[in-house]
């Protein structure tokens, strides 16, 4: 009962409520996109883009931008479009391109932060880097403006997903066929890239850039163990993701564990359960 009281006590704080709302929305959005990304063999794009976002953030800090989003978001969107839309005939193939960008951006970001340590407001380069990479308590310092921004963007992502659901299915399953029947594949790829970039920049707040891949991959993989149609996989992965995010955040509040890592651990447990169910079902 003590735990329960503690929980109720914490939940009465608006900051904790904000964090829960934002966390659930981000988990929902990333699991929706995850299905498409995993099936398009782009699981690592989340990882790559989040490192690009980290690099952009480092430059925003050093260049003393008052609103870092103004640099982070456009850069990430641009890189996402480049990665998703160059197609199969480029000189550097998809996975290699993602890996190069990801490592390059991470290194460059860390480098500039260390070259200009005086620009880091907290004066603690290592601490700042660590919290961007692994997510941080910053989830508990959200202003109501952040929350509304996040709600707005999530509504946008979910809206895009519902409205273009059948087109997204077609370009995920078979891009060539979709293009042949007159679906504007390139335009949808750009839309998808933009949405992915937006979600990743949002998700960095929750789990940090290293763990974003987990939010994208785990719910989808769990759902795919058990369900066999596209629609069911999406619905199930969204549910898994929301439940895991909530559980993870509550546990991290109660036992003061790191938020990002706890959410990912919850996702891993869910994967284990679903893999087991899948195996039992045959």
């Amino acid at each position: 009962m003590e735990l329960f009281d503690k929980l109720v006590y914490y939940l009465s704080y608006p900051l904790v409520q904000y964090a829960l709302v934002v966390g659930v929305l981000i988990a929902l959005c990333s699991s929706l996109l995850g299905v498409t990304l995993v099936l398009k063999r782009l699981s690592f794009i989340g990882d790559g883009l989040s490192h690009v976002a980290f690099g952009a953030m480092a430059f925003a800090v050093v260049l003393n931008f008052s609103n870092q989003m103004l640099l982070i978001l456009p850069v990430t969107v641009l890189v996402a479009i480049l990665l998703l839309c160059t197609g199969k005939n480029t000189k550097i193939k998809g996975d290699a391109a993602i890996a190069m960008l990801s490592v390059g951006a991470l290194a460059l970001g860390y480098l500039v932060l260390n070259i200009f340590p005086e620009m880091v407001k907290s004066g603690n380069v290592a601490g700042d880097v660590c919290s961007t990479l692994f997510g941080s308590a910053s989830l508990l310092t959200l202003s109501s403006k952040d929350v509304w921004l996040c709600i707005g963007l999530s509504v946008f992502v979910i809206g895009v997903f519902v409205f273009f659901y059948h087109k997204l299915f077609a370009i995920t399953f078979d891009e060539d066929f979709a293009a042949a029947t007159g679906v504007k594949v390139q335009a949808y790829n750009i839309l998808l890239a933009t949405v992915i970039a937006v979600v990743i920049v949002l998700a960095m707040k929750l789990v940090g850039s290293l763990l974003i891949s987990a939010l994208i991959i785990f719910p989808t993989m769990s759902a795919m163990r058990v369900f066999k149609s596209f629609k069911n996989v999406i619905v199930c992965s969204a549910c898994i993701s929301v439940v895991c995010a909530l559980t993870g955040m509550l546990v991290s509040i109660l036992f003061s564990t790191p938020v990002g890592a706890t959410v990912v651990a919850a996702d891993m447990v869910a994967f284990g359960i679903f893999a087991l169910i899948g195996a039992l079902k045959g």
Partner: protein
Amino acid sequence: MAQLTCENVILGYEKTAVTGCINLSLNKGDYLCIIGDNGSGKSTLMKGILGLRKPMEGKITFGDDLKQNEIGYMPQQTIVQKDFPASVEEIVISGCLSRSGLRPFFTKQDKMLADEMLAKMEILDLKKRSYRELSGGQQQRVLLARALCATQKMLLLDEPVAGLDPETTEEFYELVKRLNREEQVTILMVSHDLHAVSKYASHVLNLVKDPVFFVTKEEYLKLNQKGEEVSDGTV
């Protein structure tokens, strides 16, 4: 008027020509087999006809009430599709997308059309099954049903029987033949299978370079016979 005409068409990637100079003209109800070695540009030609790749030279034109996006395409299977979680129903109805424009859902007509095509492919009972659990032959039928949802005028089949056993292959050919004969669907098929050419095709396009030639089946068989006689002579 011809449904599809290629005049002096050359296709390629980044300024390197892949195909020779292609001239062909197909009417409604024709059955064209495209033959050629690996790398002779069979799939590239398919993409050219579908408008996914601009020809480097020459002109591809459509007539007889056929528009470019009214071609049903059955691509080779990709690795991605092998373990894709989708039901047969979801895949087949995605062929109707060309007609739905910006509308975010499928209409009743779309659903009826999908059912009709499933029945025509004799796989209506698989409707709720998962695509990845089907056999190779069943998967090909699903993809053919999807192509038929997109159009019933012209079908492009890219090596449709690759990886199928002889019996399933024969069944599949018979299915395509029925579409061709009974419903006057124009067929363009990439195939390595010379047996299929002699049995089903009405025209043959040979993409092996220099010279690329487009002939009727009878002419092709005659040419082939001559070739065999010549080679027999040298032995």
